[in-house]
């Protein structure tokens, strides 16, 4: 589901200066054993090696990603599917696929996706923040943080479909969870977890939370560790309590990473598929309330309906594109605290000073 990596480390002008290739001193042989060193003005250009080394990636990207991508967009304007083993199309039909998608329940599935995502993401980010803060806090002296870090990351290593399968069995009406609850007398009748929209959605959210909170924790820990310890020490001397320290120092300082986590999680959430697919057997039961956008896409692919699936992909692409743009803008701010408002304020103040000066 969610895809994350570390934010691309930014290559600044200062770095370039540091790694500038040295001007090469070329040795010229002159008359009779006289060796004169001259500094050649022309820089040696290594950049082509860079291009050569990234070439394999671009070739494979071109063949395996770009061409299919362009094809997807192209087919979205065509009627192109399979009926039995007969291929229908491709016939050009303009925007008809897009129009019929708008008339379908696409927006409802979008809302489902959003709900499922929020149910999982809110506990995920809260728990991750708390854990990251605790693990990093030197004064808490938590033993075995390394062990806990590994353990909380473990659910992410299980294949989502296997995880969903496990939950499906555990929470089935005659499954172990109901048996346990009944035998200790909490409930009299088995609960039909997967029969209600609330139950199914909660389970999907819970699984996504379990699978991804470890990942977020580790990411946020890295962010918190990047804050200069001086600031924390200073705050201690000034008599900050831990809540103030968290809300006034930690949170503002990790805001860019937090924003990045949020946006990548949204993009990952847009592509939510395997957990609800396996848990509801691809049906989004009950009453299609846990049908996500990608499950909707998948049900078109049963008939190889490349046209309709292509159009849906284009919609998704546009939404993801907008979100990517937002994350790009947010992580590109060069202001210290990472927020737009602060950057504006800083610029204003600068101008004021200039005017005064």
């Amino acid at each position, binding site marked *: 589901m969610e895809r994350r990596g570390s934010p691309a480390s930014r290559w600044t002008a200062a770095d370039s200066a540091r790694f500038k290739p040295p001007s090469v001193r070329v040795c010229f042989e002159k008359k009779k054993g006289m060796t004169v060193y001259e500094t050649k003005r022309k820089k040696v250009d290594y950049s082509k090696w860079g291009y050569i080394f990234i070439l*394999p990636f671009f070739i494979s990207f071109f063949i395996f990603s770009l061409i299919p991508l362009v094809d997807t967009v192209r087919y979205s304007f065509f009627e192109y599917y399979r*009926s039995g083993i007969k291929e229908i199309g491709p016939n050009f039909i303009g925007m008809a696929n897009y129009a019929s998608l708008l008339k379908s329940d696409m927006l409802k599935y979008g809302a489902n996706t959003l709900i499922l995502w929020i149910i999982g993401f809110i506990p995920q980010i809260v728990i991750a923040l708390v854990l990251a803060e605790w693990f990093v806090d030197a004064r808490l002296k938590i033993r075995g943080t390394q062990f806990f870090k590994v353990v909380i990351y473990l659910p992410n290593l299980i294949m989502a479909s296997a995880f969903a399968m496990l939950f499906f069995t555990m929470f089935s009406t005659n499954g172990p969870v109901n048996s346990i609850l009944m035998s200790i007398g909490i409930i009299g009748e088995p609960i039909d977890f997967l029969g209600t929209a609330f139950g199914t959605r909660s389970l999907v959210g819970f699984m996504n939370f379990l699978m991804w909170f470890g990942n977020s924790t580790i990411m946020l820990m890295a962010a918190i560790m990047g804050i200069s310890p001086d600031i924390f020490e200073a705050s201690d001397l000034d008599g900050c309590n831990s809540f103030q320290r968290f809300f006034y120092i930690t949170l503002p300082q990790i805001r860019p990473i937090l924003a990045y986590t949020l946006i990548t999680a949204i993009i990952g959430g847009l592509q939510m598929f395997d957990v609800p697919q396996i848990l509801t057997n691809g049906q989004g039961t009950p009453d299609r309330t846990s049908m996500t956008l990608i499950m909707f896409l998948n049900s078109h692919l049963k008939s190889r309906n490349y046209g309709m699936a292509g159009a849906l992909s284009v919609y998704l692409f546009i939404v993801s594109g907008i979100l990517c743009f937002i994350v790009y803008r947010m992580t590109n701010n060069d202001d210290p605290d990472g927020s737009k408002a602060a950057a504006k304020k800083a610029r204003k103040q600068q101008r004021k000073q200039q005017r005064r000066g």
Partner: protein
Amino acid sequence: MKKRVVCIVLAAAMAAGSLAGCGSKPGSGGSDGGAAGEASGGEEGKVINIYSWNDEFRERVEAVYPEVKETSSDGTVTTLNDGTEIHWIINPNQDGVYQQKLDEALMKQADAAADDKVDIFLSETDYVNKYTDAEADVAMPLTDLGIDPDSELSDQYEFTKVTASDTEGVQRGSTWQCCPGLLVYRRDIAKEVFGTDDPEEIGEKVKDWDTMKATAEELKAKGYFTFSSYADTFRLYGNSIENSWVSPGESTIKVDQKIVDWINDSKEWLDAGYLDKTVKGQWNDDWNKAMGSASKVFAFLFPAWGIDFTLKPNWDGEDGVWAVTNPPQEYNWGGSYVHACTGTDNPEHVKDIILAVTVDKENLLKISKDYSDFTNTTSGMQEAAKDDSYASEFLGGQNPFTYFAPVAENIKIAPLCAYDQGCVELIQNSFSDYLQGKVDYDKAKANFETAIIERYPDITAVEWPE
């Protein structure tokens, strides 16, 4: 300079390495091209490719096809006495994977090298119609192979021949298996509720739906469920529809009155408490548990394979607790059809295999004995019904063929169409919500319409009976 050369070589090697995967196929294809030319001259190819979804067919071929020499330990290649190899291409049925892979192969059939061509493929009753379609012409008419269905296949059950035929009545497949369904019930529950576990007497109590309902009431009074889930009875209704879901040449789905009857009866039975509310559909954990000794479910509706592959592994008690009797309505559930694929380069072998596995009476009786299949030979099954050596240990020495044979002879197969699989699957899914009381009837109808048009984009409308 040297460094630069090394760099270029390395970079090239990397680029080549990343593309190596794509390059290998066309090369090998070229060398096979020659074989194709040879094959068309009347020679048989060296490789027979068989597409299937499990190793059931392989086991049958190994058991009865006399030319089989050996099978490799991983089960992917079977060598015949003349050196021809059968390559088994197995893809699971789940989620339509098998059909996807098969469709891909069939679409490439014309351009494939001789040894890569599909020679035999299997299909199930639910989607056999998709492949026997005359226009698609992927399954060869049996007459083209040199098999005359009227004379050579006269001992097969009529409905299996109808199922494997296209709309013109040309038979394009054949099966070794025939899947009449029975009612399988628990003797211990029968004794407690009705005072007898005799199949004849229980048969009387379940002979039609009205009697069945009275019986269900009796079972309920003692705290038992008649069947486990509403999906259990679907095949009985679904197999007796008057017209196919989609009439040939149309793009409208006509939901049969029988299907609506199933919905209404299931709702009534479920609300009355004759069915176990906690079991939602088939092939899930709850359903499997309902076959265990702790369950309160009296009976299941199963064909021969269901008793052997589904009921037996889920039963945790002793043998002899289950018994079979006639179902309230004759029905067929499942069945694997063997088709010769158009364009095969091994027509002689294909013909031999089809005849050996699906027609030869001796072989079919052997399959019945060894694998408990109800096989496709009318006279053979009549003999088996009277022969006590066909008795089943699991059924406590009862001979199930006594009950299977009359059902098989009375099955009138429902008219099929290429959309059957999706219709059968989606109507059950959509109305599951309704039966469990999650949505109202109209919403379930709407959900079915949405789902079916998603699955089959060429469907334009759904009509419901008045």
